[in-house]
């Protein structure tokens, strides 16, 4: 089926992105540890290293959002959802994607374009001296556009699957 293949293609993109970004969590732990050792053992504060942990952290949760949606790990208030039939759930998901998820993503993405473009234009670097150099800051801001796009795509996959469940009756 056509919609089935596009849904699973989207799922695969989200999973690959998410799993790749996930490795950054390990680096966050290691780098934080190194920062602490450098500070206490060698009395050296490396600002760019510290900033890189925050950078990785932001990339992790922003780029992981679509994968988290695919894995059903965005918390739901499931007092009623839990006991609904598969059809009912599909209806909730279908409406939720159309009314909440897609508009929200469109809005955040659309509003962020100028914000991101300005950062690239200004060749922004960290405000701290010894902080992260260009182009890491604009690159991080670009995630503000990438996240909504990826989540909207994954939402579209959820929409297709919900439609299938509803059509099957």
């Amino acid at each position: 089926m056509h919609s089935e293949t596009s849904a699973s293609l989207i799922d695969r993109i989200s999973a690959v992105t998410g799993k790749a970004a996930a490795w950054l969590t390990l680096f966050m732990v290691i780098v934080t540890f190194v920062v602490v050792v450098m500070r206490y053992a060698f009395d050296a504060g490396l600002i760019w290293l510290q900033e890189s942990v925050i950078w990785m952290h932001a990339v992790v949760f922003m780029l992981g959002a679509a994968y988290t949606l695919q894995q059903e790990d965005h918390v739901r208030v499931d007092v009623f959802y839990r006991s609904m039939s598969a059809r009912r759930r599909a209806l909730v998901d279908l409406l939720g994607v159309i009314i909440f998820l897609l508009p929200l993503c469109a809005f955040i993405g659309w509003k962020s374009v100028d914000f991101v473009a300005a950062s690239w234009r200004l060749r922004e670097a960290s405000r701290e001296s010894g902080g992260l150099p260009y182009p890491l800051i604009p690159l991080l801001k670009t995630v503000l556009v990438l996240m909504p796009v990826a989540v909207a795509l994954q939402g579209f996959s959820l929409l297709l699957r919900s439609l299938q469940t509803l059509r099957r009756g």
Partner: protein
Amino acid sequence: MEWVAALLFVAVIVLLLAGFPVAFTLGGTALLFAGFGVLGGSFNEALLSGLPNRVFGIMNNETLVAVPLFVFMGVTLERARIAEELLETLSSLFGSLRGGLGISVTLVGMLLAASTGIVGATVVTMGLLSLPTMIKRGYSPEVAAGTICASGTLGQIIPPSIILVMLGDVMTTAYQQAQLEMGVYSPKTVSVGDLFAGALVPGLMLVGLYVLYILGIAFFRPGSMPAHQREAGETVSFLRVLQALLPPLVLIFAVLGSILKGLATPTEAAGVGGMGALLLALSRRQLSFERLSEITQSTLRISSMVFLILIGASVFSLVFRGYGGDDGVRAILEALPGGVIGAVIVVMLVMFLLGFVLDFIEITFVVVPIVGPVLLAMGVDPVWLGIMIAINLQTSFLTPPFGFALFYLRGVAPPSVRTAQIYRGAVPFVGIQLLALLLLALFPELVTWLPGRIYG
């Protein structure tokens, strides 16, 4: 236009009940309200253009970097089966005492709490691990279920829980805002470390009260909590106890100690804790490439879940403020009879009820920013308020029939344990929680003493 803000709040709660993921429902509903407002001329569109900056602020929030690092540490400890080993060792150590198994569960809950701090996870793990054993050894299902639910929720209050990290961050902002409004231009600050220090005494007090209750049951109703007859060859060596207990204890004390002594920020301590957990898992031969990759993925998903709710909540609060909602809340709270005390009681009651539908993360990011500044401006101590909120919500999660912890346990309990039994078992613990809240209200020093000693 304050009635629109009130309507928005009610609409969000109702729509959340449909069950679509919280992050998107929060942001999506607020956006709809803003959209209609812009069309009808009652909402200033310019307010929304600050959104990218706010989201980028969340991405750059230094305090909250501690969240994924603590999650990483907790997930690693969980995957390395530290909890299982702790529970096994403690229960064989105390098992031959009347009530010993119950006490072991409480202590493991406390230790696990300190490492994971995510309620659902702890209740589920404890339920799977200890409920069958407790029932097999003749514990009444009520007592067993109550003990597990209550111990599982200790995770929120005992530092270093990630919930206290989030609450600390929100309180910092709220406290600054409150002081600016009062005209204090060199505001005092409150930190995550303050909250950790403030939570320590009340957390240990709760553990103490739980243990007292269990001992009381063991003494007065021995039938519901028999001692385990140790079989031959089942004795535990001192070495095994040491092996199971020492590493996680050292890890937790190192993490907490370095924060409380001011040697490290919570973020740094969390990073070191994560490293320690990795080494611990490695030394127990519990760390394969496969498992490491699972740990990173699990950390990413929990982290993404938390921060997307924060993004959704910030869209919500932008729109809620835009409609003058915070002024409305202030007017209501200030007009309450009984002044500060009345306002605190009402806020606590509302949060308790909201705790039936929303979990800790949502309440922290949505409700605390609205009511926090008002209460703090009325002179409430920020650390005390944070701890009261934490224990209040913990109580809410334990209260039948809606408490989250009870649902989680129901999900993993064998069918032979009836839901009514889980409810009945939780009730005495709800009583203990209310007692603790009362004590903290009467003697705020229980919270404020330690932070005062440490940070001056």
